[in-house]
């Protein structure tokens, strides 16, 4: 369970000259490990944050973050620059989280029924009805499928289509999970009901 989260690290400082991701990627492609380390320093916080919120466990989030960067290094030549480098990393990270879940028996919800089931599942989070939680804790108590969608969409700003593509689910499923997740969050945060669009 997530307890406390760190503060964001600025993307550079007066002592750290800023090169664009594109320049660093080009150098890393040529085998420059220090350029890749700089990319790691710039992006690891966002990748780890995503993994932590999706997995809810620091140790798994660390593993997924490491694997994300190892895989990114191996596949740098495949990065075409159509999307931002950070977005590309996030796609890899989501894939690592899903792979970990598959390999370690975590349920994967990929259809509408599963969304409904998950919402009713008492194993999902330790939610005590009536308790008003902070948003991070409330997020962590969401069912897995809804949590993934809410994290990707509401926290990291991806579109329905992007989230559906990342998670390998239908756009409709993604919307249903978001709707369910937001409804549960309102309840758990003690926020008034509103019409969800």
């Amino acid at each position, binding site marked *: 369970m997530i307890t406390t989260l760190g503060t964001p690290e600025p993307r550079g400082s007066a002592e750290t000259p800023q090169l664009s991701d*594109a320049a660093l990627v080009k150098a890393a492609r040529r085998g420059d490990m220090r350029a890749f380390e700089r990319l790691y320093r710039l992006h690891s916080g966002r990748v780890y*944050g995503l993994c932590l919120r999706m997995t809810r466990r620091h140790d798994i989030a660390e593993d997924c973050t490491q694997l994300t960067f190892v895989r990114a290094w*191996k596949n740098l030549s495949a990065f075409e620059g159509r999307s931002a480098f950070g977005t590309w990393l996030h796609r890899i990270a989501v894939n690592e989280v899903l792979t970990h879940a598959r390999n370690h028996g975590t349920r994967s919800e990929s259809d509408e029924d599963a969304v409904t089931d998950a919402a009713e599942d008492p194993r999902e989070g330790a939610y005590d009805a009536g308790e008003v939680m902070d948003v991070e804790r409330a997020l962590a108590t969401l069912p897995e499928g809804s949590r993934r969608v809410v994290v990707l969409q509401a926290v990291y700003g991806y579109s329905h289509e992007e989230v559906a593509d990342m998670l390998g689910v239908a756009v409709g499923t993604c919307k249903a999970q978001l709707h369910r997740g937001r409804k549960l969050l309102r309840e758990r*945060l003690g926020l008034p009901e509103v019409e969800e669009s």
Partner: protein
Amino acid sequence: MSERRDPLDAALGGLHQTVQPARDLWPEVRAAIEADQQVERRTRTSSFGQWRQLAAGVVLAIAASATTYVVTRESMQGQLAQETPAPLVGAMPVSFGGEQLGADYFRAREALDAEFEQRIAALPPATRAKLENDLADLRRAANEIAATLAQHPSDPLLQDLLLSTYRSELKLFADVNEMTTRTLRTDL
């Protein structure tokens, strides 16, 4: 009429996207990469030595290139004389930041660049376009790194990156040289 933001959106929007792990994961990432790829760690010579090596490499490349070119050209018995090389589109001069390279380097590089333009004209349009794009990419990267290096002249990573970019440009020249030589021999 003012629209109030949904408090749930406000709460979610207030979350930091960045969360730093409790420990530095880079050493393990690096170790995994090195184990997987068996990346060779090159022995570093002094920075000045590296610049000199690069300059020497350019001079060597142009010498080798010129020799191959002359030999191949003679063996073609004048076939090439009918071909008029087209100007290289999009090749922009790069502002190199390495003062350690010296005037010899720049003279040699200019000559190599001129020969590159001449040789690339003999290649098929698709190949030529790709090479021109690659060269333009390299020069854009070199310009960006050189500009950043001017502001942070003692940054070792920037120095390495600039050197690495110059080497890549040199390799591109060498590849074109080899490619055109092969093409010319095939045409014989």
